[in-house]
């Protein structure tokens, strides 16, 4: 937590958050006077998800994402809480930077999508071509932007040229300087209704998307692939793929256990909001699911480090994923039933 001044001289409080997009969204809402935590935003925006996209590759490794599409958390949360927002994309980088400076001068803080590789303040372990990192610009002075990166503990400086590069990184999935800010928020937001909507849409996304690569089906699909991978790809390549998978579970700002702990935190808050014991029980179950994802990642790391070779095999890692898939299927079915009974 650190306080920082905006362009119009008013204070902005920076909070440390686990995930970039939900952190940015909650910071934007807090700045408008709504007191809302990061897990709450994550739940209302239906952030939790699973998708395995073998045809889309980042640095040669397939994507297996544990959260919804980039941009959707902000979009859904703002809509469900009745906030007015503006989003913009640009073809011309110069126009994009001018617009950003102009909006900042009016005292707004602006969320932006950037490519992580080109952000100069991050250290080596963060710098890879990930094109969906969200940050907030607070103000601009003498060619330097003050940036609030919710992944870090304190606000930080970024030169204009580097920020332009990060916002308009050439290549596939160019963010095109995507920026967004809130115009106004509903002074009396209907948190209960918004939470119910968020949970319902999450249940749909995890269970009912009719494609084998999304939701619980996607987990099973990937688990079978992991079990077969050492025979198909050879041990070294299979390890590479597994490392890529651990990255998506633990590394990309998930708050641990592939966002499952963050969702458990949301359910805990929701249980208090509705005064519902059933939701509190579900929160405990979600915590246990997070633990089993963590067990999977530790097993996978042991395989990569070649510790205890007889016990730690690809079959065991895949089996753990199948267990996670089974538990999540039951979990979201139960959640669907509980949500149906809740009253707004």
């Amino acid at each position, binding site marked *: 937590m650190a306080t920082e001044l905006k362009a119009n001289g008013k204070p902005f409080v920076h909070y440390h958050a686990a995930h970039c997009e939900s952190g940015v969204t909650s910071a934007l809402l807090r700045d408008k006077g709504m007191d809302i935590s990061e897990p709450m935003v994550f739940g209302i925006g239906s952030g939790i998800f699973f998708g395995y996209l073998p045809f889309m590759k980042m640095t040669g490794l397939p994507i297996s994402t544990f959260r919804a599409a980039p941009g959707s958390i902000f979009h859904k949360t703002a809509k469900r809480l009745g906030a007015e927002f503006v989003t913009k994309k640009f073809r011309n980088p110069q126009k994009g930077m001018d617009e950003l400076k102009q909006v900042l001068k009016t005292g707004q803080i602006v969320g932006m999508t950037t490519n992580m590789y080109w952000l100069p303040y*991050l250290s080596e372990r963060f710098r890879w071509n990930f094109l969906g990192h969200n940050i907030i610009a607070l103000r601009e002075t003498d060619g330097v932007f003050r940036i609030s990166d919710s992944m870090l503990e304190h606000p930080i400086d970024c030169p204009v040229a580097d920020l332009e590069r990060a916002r308009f990184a*050439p*290549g596939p999935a160019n963010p095109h300087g995507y920026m967004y800010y809130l115009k106004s928020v509903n002074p009396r937001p209907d948190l209960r209704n918004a939470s119910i909507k968020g949970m319902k849409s999450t249940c749909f996304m995890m269970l009912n998307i009719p494609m084998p690569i999304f939701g619980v089906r996607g987990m099973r699909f990937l688990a079978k692939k992991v079990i077969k991978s050492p025979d198909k790809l050879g041990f070294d390549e299979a390890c590479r793929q597994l490392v890529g998978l651990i990255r998506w579970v633990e590394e990309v700002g998930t708050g641990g256990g592939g966002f499952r702990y963050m969702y458990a935190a949301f359910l805990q808050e929701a249980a208090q909001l509705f005064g519902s014991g059933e939701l509190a029980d579900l929160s405990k179950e979600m915590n246990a699911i997070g633990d089993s994802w963590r067990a999977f990642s530790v097993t996978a*790391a042991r395989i*990569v480090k070649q510790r205890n070779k007889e016990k730690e095999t690809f079959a065991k890692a895949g089996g753990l994923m199948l267990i996670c898939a089974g538990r999540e299927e039951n979990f979201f079915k139960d959640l669907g039933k509980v949500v149906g009974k809740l009253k707004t």
Partner: protein
Amino acid sequence: MELEKEIFKDGMPKGYYTQNDNRKYVLDTNHCWSEEVCVAAIVSEVRANIENARKEVIAGLKSPLCYHMAVRQMDVKFLARAAGIAVFRVKRHMRPEIFAKLKSSVLDRYAVALAVTPEELKTVPDSEA
């Protein structure tokens, strides 16, 4: 082993949700061991790629373009999209004899995509960075 501990000593801890004594969720900065393994594996792979590319350029097997591509952690497809040049042409430009004959307009496009100057694009550093 050393790399794993060293990488995480950069003063940028990330947040992780854990339960405190009252079963309430709070942000904590302790990371899981598996994350260390994964990040160390990825970083060492990137470093090895860069070093391999540098050696191949010095041995005259590949063009300097290959080295700069590795530094920016791109692959051929990515670079082709970034520079607006067809994939088969980028692959051809990886050969040193063809790269040496490139027009300055093509070099400029690579230089913009990789954020280096056209002069830097033609050379690689002599020693390991």
